[in-house]
């Protein structure tokens, strides 16, 4: 390599990174990464929209190298991308949308623990290699093979910090309940990924409530912003109950399923309230998959139009806070499935 070529600057000069330096992909590093899987490198996982470039096991490994992944992370990157390419996830739409949502990966099961995915304090922030690099590998793939680049195929107005990385696991050590994956019907020993297209988390502090009704009333209100697409379309939402809030509910006798049910029931606004501002349009309400009367100002519009749309997890450190990630309007539905390790 010529001594006057700085590989970091070379890659940053190209439109191949997220603006941060990447680990330079060399044949040696890619071969090292591929040792983690028993798959043919040329096997096509799918075509990433809208450019529809093929994501092969090799090209995914290249991006995992660039992101800074360990080889043991590659199965999660592969599993996550496979899920995101499902038709119902509508990756094509989110690559081009004006909105700023990102595919959040919630990784469950023993392998997540084995590779050090973090779901405790600071889990949405920096400092945890598996969280940071798995999500980053996905984003680099969406940029380089999918073309979801602002000003090119992406019309995103703000994007979101979640487009640097969006990957975590639950804090089961401090959770009083079963995982999201178990609630979806998987065994606790299954390695599962759930992906949902969501905004950055809105942090909801409540250090006053001593019983669930008051706590969930506050959390439900944070699910119902006038400008949230959840109020004006069918959309997913991720609620990451902090373990302190989850424990408060559990100690009052509430199961995970009951908290899910109550949040779905409580989170909403009346038509009259929604008309005051935000994205209210009568024709949007008529397109809901649930019966509503857009001409009745007292009609209650729930934020969650179908119980499957609320991805309830327990994550974060100990403290009186819950994180809520609103969804998108583009017809994406959360997906989940097992992945091979």
């Amino acid at each position: 390599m010529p001594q006057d070529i700085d590989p970091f600057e070379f890659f940053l000069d190209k439109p191949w990174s997220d603006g941060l330096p990447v680990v330079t992909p060399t044949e040696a590093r890619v071969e090292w990464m591929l040792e983690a899987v028993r798959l043919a490198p040329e096997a096509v996982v799918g075509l990433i929209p809208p450019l529809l470039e093929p994501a092969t096991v090799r090209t995914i490994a290249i991006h995992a190298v660039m992101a800074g992944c360990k080889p043991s992370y590659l199965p999660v990157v592969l599993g996550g991308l496979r899920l995101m390419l499902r038709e119902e996830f509508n990756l094509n739409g989110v690559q081009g949308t004006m909105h700023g949502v990102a595919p959040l990966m919630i990784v469950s099961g023993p392998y997540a623990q084995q590779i050090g995915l973090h779901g405790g304090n600071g889990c949405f922030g920096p400092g945890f290699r598996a969280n940071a690099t798995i999500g980053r590998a996905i984003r680099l793939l969406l940029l380089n093979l999918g073309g979801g680049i602002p000003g090119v195929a992406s019309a995103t107005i703000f994007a979101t910090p979640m487009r640097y990385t969006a990957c975590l696991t639950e804090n089961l050590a401090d959770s009083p309940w079963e995982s999201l994956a178990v609630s979806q019907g998987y065994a606790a020993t299954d390695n599962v990924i759930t992906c949902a297209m969501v905004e950055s988390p809105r942090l909801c502090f409540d250090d006053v409530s001593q019983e669930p009704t008051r706590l969930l009333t506050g959390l439900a209100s944070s699910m119902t912003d006038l400008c949230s697409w959840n109020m004006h379309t069918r959309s997913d939402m991720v609620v990451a109950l902090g373990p302190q809030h989850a424990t408060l509910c559990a100690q009052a006798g509430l199961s995970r399923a009951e908290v899910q049910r109550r949040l779905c029931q409580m989170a909403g606004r009346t038509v009259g309230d929604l008309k005051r501002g935000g994205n209210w349009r009568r024709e949007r309400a008529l397109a809901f998959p649930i019966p509503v009367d857009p001409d009745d100002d007292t009609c209650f519009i729930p934020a969650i139009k179908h119980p499957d749309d609320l991805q309830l997890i327990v994550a974060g450190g100990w403290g009186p806070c819950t994180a809520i990630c609103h969804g998108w309007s583009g017809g994406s539905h959360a997906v989940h499935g097992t992945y091979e390790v």
Partner: protein
Amino acid sequence: MAETLGFIDPTAGGDVARIPLARRPMDLAGATVGLLDNTKEQGDVILHTLGSVLQERYGVARVVLQRKEHYSKPAAPALIEAMAQEVTVAIAAVGG
């Protein structure tokens, strides 16, 4: 150049295809115009208005209005193919 330096181009391997633009007719008299509604609100209003103006002022013989499944998803290939067989030119509208 990346390869000559010992690096891997992460975008290498993709085919580059040039798709020429369809010929633009200079005269729409007697033409059939396709109007593709992307389903965003008021896109249909724009298209209906446009279709009427094209017929009244430019002699368009017929308009064919089609609607996508959802604004964030591509039009179904069958829809595009059917429209391509039927119309002279097509116009897509984004509502909002």
